[in-house]
């Protein structure tokens, strides 16, 4: 029995050195496979070469050359503890040499007949740090029962070591790529979470960012006042997004469910399912159709983390992978938990903001009547739109029929935002009503308001116009404390700004007010408004006022209410910047 023969001319030492060097430069798995399988067979005259990875107790062939038809499928995967040369080399991390088919049959009965007559087999382990088992094995068969001698075997072992280093390098590179993918995701997701207080939009962005790198599909559930609800879904296949929503609608989450996102919502503790066996789907299914839908989702691996802030679980983030071979692990869970905390904070902030905004808006709405229709002889229309992205401001209006039959109309703008501005506005509006009832002279009202600001200021500063209309004299008397000028639109559409003697806003120190009285025809319309209606960022004031005057011509239309909305639309106001408030009034036309 010739165990080793060195006289075969096929073994090219220089060629082997070249292929070994080639491995040192390999940066893709394909390059490693090319070197370890294709180029090596040429260099050493092997008839068959296979590269088999050892992972999780199993061997998986990733490249082969020269194999007989049918063998490749048969040997594509087998167990580490199987009784064959590859498994043995992987377990022992020592080369296995088989001189002949007879030796193979004798040593590995289950392998009987696998090695053709006249061939010999060498299996080289590719060692790993911290092994056994080996990281991979390299199988080589030779014609004429040739096997390498001691020096050749050393050279081949060096080659196998280079293979191992190349595989380690690839794994490290993949690790780095995954890590940087995660960091990029976390950075992008954090930016998205910080960008908006509209958390539904934000959570959809986060879910979309997770796909496809981190998840095949991703869903976010949030605890709403009405119970848990899915608010965001992203899937690798956009067509499946609609389908996933449908699934959520048909099988809404059950808060008492024994597992899954419902349990995470209750407990605030993450759940990691590295592998999802079919039994789990069966256990969670509500009915056969639900089971089928769950199976169609091909959930191979999943993780669910809570969205927490200040000890409260606001929702859950679920990530599911459909690809086999990339099961979630603890590092994925840590990343998702980090994201969950950030998303939880974003939801918490949004909820707090929404609560504060709701209270301010409710106060605003409670104080401002939406329609003022109960004033005989007068048609009054109002418009109020709270600032969109900013907080609610302190705009207000009022219309009050005085005991002497005159009509007082008021518009005001309290400086600031949010609840303090809304509360200041409510106090100020009540004060104006009370002072008007006491003495309807608008100069006297302003004097009283100055006193109020001096000793119990309802707010830091406010601008205001008070106009008292006398229908019988067809004139209007007005005072203006730091507010933009009201506008009169005549029946022919001609608009005139009412320039009054300027006095500072309320809260800017007591000041003497003078009233201005101008004619107001029975067919004319008076427009009071706040800065949000006129101002455009960066536009000089006179241009803003001129545009307003031009657009106000529509106020001559028969329906004052719809005319006001037409004008606001035509002005194209940007409610995101500031509250937009307006009041228009004219005599009921005979």
């Amino acid at each position: 029995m010739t165990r080793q023969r060195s006289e075969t001319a096929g073994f090219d030492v220089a060629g082997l050195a070249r292929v070994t060097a080639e491995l040192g430069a390999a940066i893709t798995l394909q390059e490693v496979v090319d070197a370890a399988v294709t180029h090596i067979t040429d260099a050493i005259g092997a008839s068959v070469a296979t590269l088999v990875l050892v992972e999780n107790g199993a061997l998986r062939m990733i490249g082969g050359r020269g194999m007989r038809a049918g063998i490749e499928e048969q040997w594509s995967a087998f167990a580490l503890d199987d009784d064959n040369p590859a498994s043995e080399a992987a377990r022992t991390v020592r080369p296995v040499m088989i001189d002949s088919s007879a030796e193979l049959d004798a040593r590995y009965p289950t392998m009987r007949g696998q090695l053709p007559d006249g061939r010999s087999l060498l299996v080289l382990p590719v060692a790993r740090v911290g092994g056994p088992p080996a990281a991979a094995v390299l199988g080589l068969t030779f014609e004429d029962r040739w096997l390498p001698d001691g020096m050749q075997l050393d050279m081949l072992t060096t080659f196998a070591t280079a293979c191992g280093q190349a595989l380690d390098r690839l794994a490290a590179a993949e690790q780095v790529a995954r890590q940087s993918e995660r960091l990029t995701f976390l950075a992008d997701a954090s930016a998205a979470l910080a960008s908006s207080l509209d958390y539904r939009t934000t959570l959809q962005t986060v879910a979309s960012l997770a796909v496809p790198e981190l998840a095949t599909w991703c869903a976010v559930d949030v605890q709403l006042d009405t119970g848990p609800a899915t608010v965001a879904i992203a899937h690798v296949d956009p067509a499946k997004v609609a389908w996933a929503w449908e699934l959520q609608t048909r099988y809404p989450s059950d808060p008492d469910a024994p597992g899954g996102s419902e349990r995470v919502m209750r407990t605030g503790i993450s759940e990691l399912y590295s592998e999802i066996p079919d039994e789990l789907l069966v256990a969670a299914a509500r009915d056969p159709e639900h089971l089928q839908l769950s199976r169609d989702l091909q959930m191979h691996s999943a993780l669910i983390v809570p969205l927490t802030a200040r000890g409260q679980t606001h929702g859950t983030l679920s990530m599911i992978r459909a690809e086999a071979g990339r099961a979630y692990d603890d590092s994925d869970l840590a990343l998702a938990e980090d994201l969950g905390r950030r998303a939880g904070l974003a939801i918490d902030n949004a909820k707090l903001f929404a609560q504060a905004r709701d209270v301010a808006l409710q106060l605003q709405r409670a104080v401002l009547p939406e329609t003022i229709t109960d004033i005989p002889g007068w048609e009054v229309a109002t418009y109020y739109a709270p600032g969109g992205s900013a907080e609610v401001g302190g705009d207000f209006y009022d219309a009050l029929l005085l005991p002497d039959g005159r009509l007082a109309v008021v518009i005001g703008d309290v400086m600031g935002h949010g609840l303090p501005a809304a509360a200041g506005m409510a106090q100020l509006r009540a004060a104006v009503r009370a002072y008007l009832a006491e003495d309807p002279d608008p100069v006297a009202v302003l004097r009283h308001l100055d006193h109020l600001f001096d000793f119990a200021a309802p707010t830091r500063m406010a601008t205001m116009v008070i106009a008292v209309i006398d229908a019988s004299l067809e004139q209007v008397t007005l005072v203006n404390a730091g507010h933009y000028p009201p506008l009169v639109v005549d029946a022919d559409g001609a608009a005139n700004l009412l320039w009054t003697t300027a006095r500072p806003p309320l809260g800017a120190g007591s000041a003497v007010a003078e009233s201005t009285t101008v004619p107001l025809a029975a067919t004319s319309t008076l427009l009071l408004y706040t800065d949000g209606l006129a101002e455009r960022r960066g536009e000089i004031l006179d241009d803003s006022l001129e545009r307003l005057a031009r657009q106000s011509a529509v106020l001559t239309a028969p329906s004052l209410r719809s005319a006001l909305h037409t004008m606001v639309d035509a002005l194209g106001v940007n409610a995101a910047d500031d509250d937009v408030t307006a009041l228009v009034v004219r005599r009921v036309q005979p």
Partner: protein
Amino acid sequence: MGSPITIEHRDGVYVLHVTGALDLETVDQLRTAACGQLDGDGCVELIIDAAELSFIDSTGIGCLVDISNRARSAGTRFGMTNLEPQVARVLDLVGMSHLAQ
């Protein structure tokens, strides 16, 4: 539209040079700069030099009223100089032209 503010002072008179626009985006800068002087010791007079200020809106006016009120309670004189016509026009319109020196 940025509004870099520079400060110079001599004998208790602090001058803030404001440039560009005074609106929602820049009022906080001015308010912080002005309050910094008013809260410090030895500010007898605070002046905003508006030679380079080309635009002001209602938010900017609100800020000036704020500064004016704080100056009054601190016992510090406050005013504005070198107003551009557009800025003077807005101050005039809202009854704050007394700030112009």
